[in-house]
């Protein structure tokens, strides 16, 4: 058992190192020079002044040493929990900016993903049961899944936000408010949260429902289901077994979803102007902010790995076949 987890941990560690390295490389090998763009913003007249400024910024961002040393310095500060200084929001540190954005992303995505997963599975299982429900859930599911997310989000913002005026369409809270522990602020937060949440929920729901429906139908056709029915087992028992077994691939799917949690929110946060990680990524790319981009990606990488590790653990609990392999039994 410990050998199994030890091996898994080692693989995750390797993945982390590789991902962080790629993560460090990507912004540095992108075209464009962030120091130049900062100088352009300052619009200095004299070449001496701009040379001095460039020198200063290179020093601040650690770009004045050879590339290999930049890489080592990067790991060093990473291990100290220092992700560098943002270029876009200079001179705020990246960790502080991320810490401000992460709660918004998590509060949006975790409920949306978990609830759509839960509801989608229930809906799909119910659809596999009845012809009438199947004939409504299936086309609806395909419609939701096939719909470009941008379009759905804009449709929701337009219909419920602008035409019906039920919900605000931009920001995380009202412009006139400051974050505080007041009821008014909480209400504003919830109202702003609802539309982005709904769009994410709806778009994922269809996929889960279709997946579950197909998996259940497949399980109901399987040999163990036929055998139980040959022995006169009631539908209830057969369905319970089928549902449990069909959940296994869905759990893997959930892990992948949870992993892409941050990247997945990019479009939502842009459409609804929601100040999460996705919104930061967009701004970081626009402003060639190496450090912010690195920090945001690091967050995604860690999210993916953590989610996968949790699912590995859950699998051990729910699938005896994994447990058997772990104890060195025959596959």
């Amino acid at each position, binding site marked *: 058992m410990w050998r199994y987890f030890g091996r898994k941990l080692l693989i995750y560690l390797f993945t982390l190192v590789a991902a962080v390295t790629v993560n460090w490389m990507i912004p540095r090998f992108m075209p464009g020079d962030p120091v130049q763009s900062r100088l352009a913003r300052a619009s200095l007249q004299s070449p001496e002044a701009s040379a001095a400024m460039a020198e200063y910024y290179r020093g601040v961002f650690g770009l004045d040493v050879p590339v290999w040393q930049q890489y080592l310095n990067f790991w060093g500060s990473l291990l100290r929990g220092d992700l560098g200084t943002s270029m876009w929001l200079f001179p705020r540190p990246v960790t502080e900016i991320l810490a401000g954005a992460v709660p918004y992303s998590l509060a949006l995505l975790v409920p949306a993903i978990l609830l759509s997963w839960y509801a989608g599975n229930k809906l799909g299982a119910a659809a596999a049961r009845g012809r009438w429900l199947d004939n409504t859930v299936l086309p609806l599911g395909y419609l939701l899944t096939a719909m470009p997310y941008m379009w759905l989000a804009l449709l929701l913002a337009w219909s419920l936000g602008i035409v019906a005026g039920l919900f605000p369409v931009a920001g995380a809270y009202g412009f006139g408010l400051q974050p505080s522990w007041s009821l008014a602020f909480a209400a504003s937060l919830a109202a702003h949260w609802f539309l982005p949440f709904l769009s994410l929920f709806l778009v994922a729901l269809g996929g889960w429902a279709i997946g579950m429906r197909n998996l259940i139908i497949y399980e109901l056709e399987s040999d163990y289901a036929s055998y139980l029915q040959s022995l006169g087992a009631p539908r209830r028992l057969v369905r319970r*077994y089928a549902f449990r077994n069909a959940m296994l691939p869905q759990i893997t799917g959930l892990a992948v979803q949870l992993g892409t949690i941050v990247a997945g929110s990019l479009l939502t946060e842009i459409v609804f102007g929601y100040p999460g990680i996705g919104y930061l990524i967009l701004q970081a790319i626009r402003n060639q902010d190496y450090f912010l981009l690195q920090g945001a990606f690091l967050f995604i990488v860690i999210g993916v790995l953590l989610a996968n590790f949790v699912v590995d653990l859950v699998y051990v609990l729910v699938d*005896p076949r994994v447990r058997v392999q772990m104890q060195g039994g025959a596959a």
Partner: protein
Amino acid sequence: MALQVSDLRVHYRTVRGDVRALDGVTFALADGEITGLAGESGSGKTTLGKSLVRLDGRMRHVGGRVELDGRELPIGDSARMDRFRFHEVSVIPQYAMSALNPTRRIGTMVRELLRSRGIGHRAVRPELERRLRLVGLAPEVLDRYPIELSGGMKQRVVMVLSTLLDPALLVADEVTSALDVSTQRAVAEALVEFRDRGYVRSMIVVTHDLSLVYQIADSIMVMYGGRLAEKAPADALVTAPRHPYTRRLLAALPEPGVRHEDKRLAGIPGGPPELLDPPAGCRFRARCPLADDRCAEQPPFTEVAPAHFVACWKAG
């Protein structure tokens, strides 16, 4: 008569029309009789076996009756049939290796199955353990998951589970096909033992292995193209087959002591008939060396000697 099947017709529904997999099958099975059901792929033998226990979604009961101990089995009505399944009729499926839910301990699955049928698990448990020991399994297999058992072990678990309530009729579908030769023998002998101990009253052993079924069966039925060609006591069928198809089938089997270097085994030329739109008359006509004009009319399945039934004009 334990089982009486009269003119049973079961078709498969397809988009191109009905496939007549069972097209008028009539036979009887005595108490305690083990009958082998042989035939080539697509002859309808598995369909016949399934029809007696559970029709799958594509199968349709078109006509004919099945009676077990004088009571009609509602084979076309799955819900009403549930009462008979497990208690009266049971099956060891072709896919015994994958018949157990992979994510449940075997004991848990058995308990949940028994409870769902309203049978007290406690009352049955000692008998279950006794029978597992009988087939050479420790009762501890009940605490295992199917993945922890070998194919042969799973086969035996299914065998014990299917016959746990002492059904009057057991359909054993290709139970030996996926096993190696030594295990085949053990499984075949266990089937006979189950009958001798009264765990199962009568048995239909579906197989394409005539030589194996000859060793355990009291009688053998040969199917061809959705109909019975011949049914006879095992010895009579093997030593004095009457139907030309049975004769050719037996001629295609290797004999012990005969070297096949210089004598090639005889096959049966041609292929089985298309059951979507079967030809009129005797189904074997196109491949039969004895066929003549009379065979354009379907021959009746008649008793030509005591307990020896043949569907052939030339058999009389």
